[in-house]
C-alpha cells in the first residue's frame, strides 16, 4: 500500500522559487507576526508570494491579515485565495472558528493533504508559518520539501533561546539551510542573543524592539507594516532575503 499524495508535492511547488519556513523551538515568540510581515514585505517589494499557515492547532495568520471567509475555488485542486496580494492557505478555510484537536499522525496527514492538493501559482516565495517546536510539522517538511530554508525567531528570554538552540542543532544535523535568526520583542540593549547566535554559526538578522502598537495592527496589514516589526523586516528582506537570489 502506497500513499500516492507525496509523489505530487514537488510538482505542486515546482513553480515556487524559494520556500521559507518561519520557525521557533518555542511558542509565543511572534512567529506568525514575523511570517505574515515577511510575506507582506516581500509582496510590497514586487515579489509573488504565498503564505501557508501550518500551525493547525493554533492558526493566527488569518487574524493578523484580517482575512475574510471565502468560497474556495477549485481547479484540479484548491486555488489559494488572494489576501492583500498574497496567495493564502490555512486550515481555517475548512474548520472556521472550531478547535482542531489533532495528534501527530493526523497533523502529518493534514499537512500532506494540503501540500498535495493546493495549486500554488508561480511564486517567488512561499512563506510557511510553522507551529512551535521541532515536532511533526518540522520533520515532515524536511522530509517532503528538500529545498526548504528556515528563518528562526526567538525572544531575548533564555527560555526561548534554549529551545531555539536545540532546534538549530537539529536543523544543522539534518543539513537544512538556515537564513538566520530574528530576535523579537527586545526591550533593552543587551546583546547576549546576538553573541550566542553567532557562536552557533548563525547569522543574526536583526532585533525587533517591543512595540505596543503591534496589537493594534492586528487585522490591519498597512498598519502592521509601519510597526517596529514592519520596519525591521523591511531591512532583513533587503539585506538577507532578497540579497540571496536563488533559482527554482
Amino acid at each position, binding site marked *: 500500500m502506497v500513499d*500516492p499524495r507525496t509523489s505530487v508535492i514537488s510538482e505542486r511547488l515546482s513553480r515556487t522559487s524559494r520556500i521559507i519556513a518561519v520557525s521557533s523551538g518555542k511558542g509565543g515568540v511572534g512567529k506568525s507576526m514575523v511570517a505574515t510581515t515577511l510575506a507582506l514585505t516581500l509582496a510590497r517589494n514586487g515579489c509573488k508570494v504565498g503564505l501557508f499557515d501550518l500551525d493547525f492547532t493554533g492558526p493566527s495568520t488569518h487574524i493578523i491579515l484580517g482575512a475574510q471567509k471565502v468560497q474556495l475555488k477549485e481547479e484540479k*485542486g484548491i486555488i489559494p485565495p488572494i489576501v492583500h496580494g498574497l496567495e493564502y492557505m490555512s486550515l481555517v478555510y475548512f474548520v472556521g472558528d472550531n478547535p482542531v484537536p489533532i495528534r501527530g499522525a493526523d497533523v502529518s496527514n493534514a499537512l500532506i493533504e494540503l501540500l498535495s492538493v493546493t495549486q500554488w501559482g508561480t511564486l517567488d516565495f512561499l512563506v510557511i508559518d510553522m507551529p512551535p517546536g521541532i515536532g511533526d510539522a518540522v520533520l515532515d517538511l524536511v522530509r517532503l520539501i528538500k529545498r526548504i530554508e528556515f528563518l528562526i525567531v526567538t525572544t531575548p528570554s533564555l527560555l526561548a533561546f534554549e529551545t531555539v538552540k536545540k532546534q538549530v542543532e537539529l536543523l544543522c544535523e539534518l543539513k537544512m539551510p538556515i537564513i538566520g535568526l530574528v530576535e523579537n520583542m527586545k526591550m533593552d540593549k543587551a546583546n547576549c542573543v546576538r553573541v550566542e547566535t553567532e557562536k552557533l554559526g548563525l547569522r543574526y538578522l536583526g532585533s525587533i524592539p517591543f512595540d505596543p502598537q503591534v496589537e493594534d495592527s492586528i487585522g490591519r496589514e498597512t498598519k502592521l507594516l509601519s510597526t517596529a516589526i514592519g520596519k525591521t523586516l523591511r531591512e532583513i528582506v533587503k539585506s538577507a532575503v532578497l540579497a540571496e537570489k536563488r533559482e527554482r
Partner: protein
Amino acid sequence: MHEWALAEAILTSAREIAEKEKLTEVTEVTIRVGELQQVERPILRFALSEMKPPLLKNAKFRILKAKSTLRCRVCGTTWPFDSKGMDKATAEAIHFVPEVAHSYVKCPKCGSPDFEIASGRGIWLESVKGAKQ
C-alpha cells in the same frame, strides 16, 4: 475538482512505481478509497482516464471502497463514519482534509473529539501490475 488533484497524485505515484519495477506497460492499478474522504468515484475515474501518461495508457483502474472506522481514544468505542445529516459545508471540509473531522465529529458514547481514524481515511495505491519486456 479535488478528485483531479488526487488522480494526478495516483498517476504520478503509479508511474514512479512502474518505472522502478521496470514495467514497459501498466495493465492494472488498484486504488483503495476511504469513505471518510467522500471521493466521487465517477469523477476520480474520469480524471484518471483523462490524465493517464503513455506508460499507463492501457491500464485498467480498479477503485475499491474502504469502510471508515473511527475509534475513541478515551472510551474505546468504535463507530463508522457517516456523513448523513451533516451539512454540505462540513461534509465538503472533511472531503478536502479528512483530519478536520476532529473539529466536527464526536464520540457517540462519551462525546470526546479525541478519536483515531482507524481505517478508511483517504486514497491508497494498493497495487500496480504490468508487463516487463
